[in-house]
Every structure is written in structure tokens, then in C-alpha cells.
């Protein structure tokens, strides 16, 4: 109980509340601008969090990400350009509703069900995380090895259109993670005599490069074309909220559960959740023929799902230190910088911090309703901000942010290299998310592999002779088998 009171004292202070409010507005603005993703919003926020206490730093990232995922629905509904990839699954549907003159219903549903979804995911986080943490105290290097493998597998194969390109991206991330002295043997690897590289590749400038700089390159290359003018008038978004909850409670609940489950899975995030939920909704709908013509049902289920997954992605991140998606991958980096090493012991030694994070989640999802309304009202003006002015300014932020990560030009070099890499990868349809998860999970995987091998004197049996480890291993092999089966099946279908 003491911890909960302490958590309230940590959160309800002026600096924390103003930080959260600021981060919420920032997240809404970035999310609402097409091309700028929730992950990019979080990455751009990182340099600012260096100078904050742990609670406002984490609070800012939680709030910013939740708002950005919701705000991605706005340009999706008004322009048919998803603001973030997590909205892409139902952009077509929401836009079709706008064309029918139902923009306020679509956007109202997005605000309402995003907030409910976020709260549902948070509830699961609150109840599941401490229990799982107790369970995770029994984990040894074998279990962590399998958890890390599970995270990498999900990130490469789930939601990636081409498993082989997902794997290439993952390997790039793992390769990046091996650079430096930081390995069990303490041998410098891939440093080529550079002292900067000894410390490894700094994660934060790499993130800024992959997500933000590559987007600047793309926009500049396209000559920063203006968006179509938004002519739509959005009326009262609060209309018929009660009716929607009554009509669509089934879809909402199913979306919440699917989203939460996908979020908890290490390595798969909000965009995968939205796609899966939209497909599930269509599959179980009584009126599947209405999908694609501006039907609210699928929008409700998918928007409930992506926000739920965002909250539940924190379960593996806090409990095991293994990111649930790209956003929590960044957050884990920040937690380490702040001295809050994620893992089960965080729940024992600093429970007040965990409760404070939960509180911030609840606050963020409640704030979403008034702030979401405000941003929808401002959307027309916001979407008129020309990209030709926005992008160069973002580039300056990127440079300064990369520099701030360790106050050296080295950060900017990393940012540039990764910006070009990210640009090249997107051009060739190689997904970026597996690369990021590879960079974060790689060291965990290697460390636990080598530790296990040293403990067992080189015997591989140790990896499966503990019950939890064996279960995790079987689960992982089932996923691999299903990926291979699907690959062969699609090849067979293509051949015939």
C-alpha cells in the first residue's frame, strides 16, 4: 500500500503533470502528421528525457506514444493517409466513412475505442505484470535465451510481408549489436581501431537515423508534395457514444483481447495488432460484405486493438527486459540510462516506480478524450502545415538530438549512417522494426547464450532440461514450423 501512495506522490507533482501534458500534445501533433510515426515521436523525445528524472521521462514516453497511435487515425480518416502504420489497417474504411459524410462518427469511435482499448491493456498490465514478475524470478539464463529468441522470431516473421527480408533486417540489427567491447569475452569486435566504436553503436542516434532521418530523405526526394486540401467539416464527435458502446461491445472486447495478446508477445506491436483485429472482425462479422464501404464495425475492432497492444507491450518490457515492440525497445534503452534496469527485480526493489508507470498509463488514456477532441478540431489547420517547412526543421532536431546523446559528433555520424541505411531498407521493402529489435535484444541473446554454455560446459541439453525453458522452446519451434509450412504452402499454390 505504501508503494501505491508513494506512486501517487511521484506522479501528481507539477513537473510530472506538465511534462505529461506537453508530451501528450507533442505525440498528438506528430501522430497526426502523415509519415511521422509513433516510434519516431518517441525517438525524438529521447534526447529530452536525458535531462529529466526517471518518472517524468517514462511518463513522457508513455503518453506520447499512446497519443501518437490514436492521432494516426485522424489523417487516415480525413485524407486516407495513415498518420502511423498502426492505423493503416483501417484507413481505407475510415476514409470511406468520411466520404459518406460520417467523419465525426469515425473519429469519435477512434477516440472512444482507443481510450477504452488503452485502459483495457493497462488493466492487463497492472494485473499480469507483477504476477509474471514473481514467476520470472525463477528464470535463469536458459529461459531468458528462449524469451529473446521468441522476441526475435516474432519481430522477423509476424506481420512482415516477406519473412526472408524480415530476417535480413533482423540480422543487420544483430550485427550492429555485436560492435564494441561489450561481450562476454571482452574482445573488441568490428571496431577497426576506432575508440568510439569500442563502446558499441549508440542506440539512440541509430533510432533517430532509422526512423526520422530516413523519412526526411524520402520527403525531400519526393519534393515535399502538399497534401490534398481537407474540405471535410467534422461535427460533434461525441454523438452517439453510448449507442456505439452498446452496439459494438463484442467487437470492442475482441479487439481489446486480441490487441493485448499480440502486445504481450515480445516483438509484435500495434500495427500487427490492428491488421489481425481488422481481419478477425471481418471473418466473424454478420455483414462481411459491408467491409471496405465505410462500415464502422472493423474500425472499432482495429482501433480498440492497436491501443490495447501499446499498453500490454510493456508487460515483457518491464518484466523480462525484452521489448514488446519498437516503442518499448526505445523505452528500455532509456530505462537503462536512468538506472532502472527492467526485469523482475524492478518490481521488488522499486515497486513505487512501477505503480507510477501504471498511473501514468491510466492518466494518458483518460487525457486522450479531451485532447483528442481538441486535435480533431485543429486537424484542418494541422494538415495544412506544409511538409516543406516541417521536414528541414525535423532534420535540425535530429542532428541536435543525436549530438545530445553523448555530446559528440560521433552521434551525428551514427545518425547519418543509419538514416541512409533506413532509407535504403525502405526502398527495398526491408522492414525496419526487426532491425531495431535485433539491436536491443541481440546483447541479451548473446549474453544468455554464452552464460548458459559456460554453466553447462558446452552441452546444449541445458537449454531444454528446465521445464519453463522446454515449454518456451517447444512454442518457438511451433512458430518456426508454421512459418515454414506457410512458405511451402504459398509456393505450392504459386506453382500450381
Amino acid at each position, binding site marked *: 500500500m505504501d508503494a501505491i501512495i508513494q506512486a501517487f506522490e511521484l506522479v501528481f507533482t507539477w513537473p510530472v503533470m506538465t511534462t505529461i501534458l506537453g508530451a501528450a500534445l507533442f505525440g498528438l501533433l506528430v501522430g497526426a502528421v502523415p509519415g511521422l510515426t509513433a516510434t519516431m515521436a518517441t525517438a525524438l523525445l529521447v534526447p529530452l528525457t536525458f535531462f529529466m528524472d526517471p518518472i517524468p521521462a517514462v511518463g513522457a514516453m508513455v503518453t506520447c506514444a499512446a497519443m501518437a497511435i490514436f492521432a494516426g487515425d485522424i489523417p487516415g480518416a480525413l485524407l486516407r493517409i495513415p498518420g502511423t502504420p498502426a492505423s493503416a489497417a483501417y484507413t481505407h474504411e475510415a476514409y470511406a466513412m468520411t466520404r459518406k459524410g460520417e467523419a465525426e462518427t469515425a473519429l469519435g469511435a477512434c477516440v472512444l475505442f482507443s481510450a477504452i482499448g488503452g485502459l483495457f491493456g493497462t488493466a492487463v498490465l497492472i494485473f499480469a505484470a507483477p504476477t509474471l514478475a514473481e514467476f520470472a524470478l525463477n528464470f535463469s539464463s536458459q529461459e531468458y535465451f528462449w524469451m529473446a529468441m521468441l522476441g526475435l522470431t516474432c519481430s522477423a516473421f509476424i506481420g512482415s510481408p516477406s519473412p526472408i527480408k524480415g530476417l535480413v533486417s533482423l540480422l543487420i540489427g544483430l550485427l550492429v549489436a555485436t560492435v564494441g567491447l561489450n561481450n562476454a569475452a571482452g574482445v573488441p569486435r568490428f571496431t577497426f581501431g576506432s575508440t568510439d566504436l569500442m563502446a558499441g553503436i549508440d542506440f539512440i542516434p541509430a533510432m533517430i537515423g532509422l526512423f526520422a532521418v530516413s523519412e*526526411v530523405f524520402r520527403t525531400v*526526394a519526393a519534393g515535399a508534395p502538399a497534401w490534398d486540401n481537407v474540405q471535410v467539416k467534422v461535427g460533434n464527435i461525441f454523438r452517439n457514444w453510448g449507442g456505439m458502446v452498446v452496439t459494438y461491445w463484442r467487437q470492442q472486447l475482441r479487439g481489446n483481447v486480441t490487441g493485448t495478446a499480440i502486445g504481450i508477445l515480445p516483438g509484435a506491436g500495434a500495427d500487427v495488432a490492428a491488421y489481425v483485429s481488422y481481419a478477425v472482425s471481418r471473418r466473424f462479422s454478420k455483414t462481411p460484405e459491408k467491409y471496405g464501404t465505410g462500415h464502422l464495425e472493423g474500425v472499432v475492432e482495429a482501433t480498440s486493438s492497436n491501443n490495447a497492444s501499446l499498453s500490454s507491450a510493456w508487460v515483457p518490457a518491464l518484466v523480462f527486459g525484452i521489448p514488446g515492440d519498437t516503442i518499448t525497445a526505445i523505452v528500455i534503452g532509456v530505462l537503462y540510462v536512468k538506472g532502472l534496469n527492467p526485469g523482475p527485480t524492478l518490481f521488488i526493489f522499486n515497486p513505487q516506480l512501477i505503480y507510477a508507470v501504471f498511473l501514468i498509463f491510466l492518466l494518458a488514456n483518460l487525457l486522450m478524450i479531451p485532447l483528442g477532441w481538441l486535435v480533431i478540431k485543429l486537424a484542418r489547420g494541422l494538415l495544412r502545415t506544409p511538409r516543406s517547412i516541417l521536414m528541414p526543421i525535423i532534420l535540425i532536431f535530429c542532428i541536435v538530438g543525436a549530438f545530445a546523446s553523448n555530446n559528440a559528433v560521433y552521434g551525428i555520424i551514427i545518425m547519418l549512417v543509419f538514416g541512409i541505411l533506413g532509407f535504403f531498407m525502405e526502398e527495398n521493402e526491408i522492414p525496419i522494426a526487426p532491425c531495431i529489435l535485433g539491436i536491443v535484444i541481440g546483447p541479451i541473446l548473446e549474453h544468455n547464450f554464452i552464460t548458459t554454455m559456460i554453466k553447462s560446459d558446452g552441452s546444449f541439453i541445458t537449454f531444454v532440461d528446465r521445464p519453463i525453458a522446454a515449454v518456451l522452446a517447444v512454442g518457438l519451434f511451433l512458430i518456426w514450423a508454421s512459418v515454414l509450412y506457410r512458405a511451402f504452402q504459398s509456393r505450392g499454390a504459386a506453382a500450381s
Partner: protein
Amino acid sequence: MRFSDTMLGAMLLILGIAVTAYARTLPAVPGQQYGAAAFPTLIGVGFVCCALILLVQGLKARSVPLVSFTEWTRQPGALVAVGVTILCIVAYMLLARRVGFIPVSVAILVVLFRLLSVSWGKTIFFAVAATLVTDYVFRSLLLVPLPFGMMPRMPW
């Protein structure tokens, strides 16, 4: 710029072989079977496997050119624009220390705004305003030691 599966496969094959060869040169930990070399070797082998699959896929499809230009790269000036943006970042790395954050940032913004055909009035206004706001936020609020160069300290 888009590489075909064959081209991508060939590049990854070279990368994979190079990584594996490099990993073999890493010293072993005495008395242990797995040391610093184990992981890079696995990654290298992984690259080689992916490369072979891509090569097979590419050779089957055959008719695709090795390097093709995606829609936007065919637009006049697209590649130049990306090149200029990269040069701007390189210029910052080389000049910021000597000249200072404010002049270099204004210069970069002016170049990029003009590249995206923003009018001169807006260019000057946004370049100066964005630079001063960034300088204030990062130098004064967040205490990032942005280089002064030959500029005097701003009044904040």
C-alpha cells in the same frame, strides 16, 4: 533506388562471408568452446543463407534489372535533393565546431527550404526562428553544449 533479389542476394553474400571471415580472427576464450566469435559467425552464416535464398529467387525471376529506379527517383532532382540533404549533415559535422551551431543551422535550413521551393520570406523567417528556438531549448533548458564557434552566446 531498388535492388533486385539477385543484386541484394549478391551483396548480402559478400557481407556474410566477410563477417564470418572476420569473426574467425577473433581470439577464443581459453578453456571455453564459445567466446566472442560464436555470435558474429552465426550472424554471418545467417546472412549467407538469406543471400542464397534471395539469389535463387532472383535467378528464377530473371527478367528484373539488377538495379531499378523507383517511381520517385525518376523525378528530376530527387537524387540531387537526397544528396544535398546528406551533404548538409556532413557540413554540420565538419563546420559546427569552428563556426558555431547558430550560423550552420541557419545555413542548412536556408538550403533545404530553398531546395523544397519555400518562398524567400518564409525561408528566412523559419530558418532563424527554428534555429533560435532549438538553441534556447537545447542549450539553455537541456544544457546540451552546442558549439558556439565564432558566435557570441545568445542573451539566454
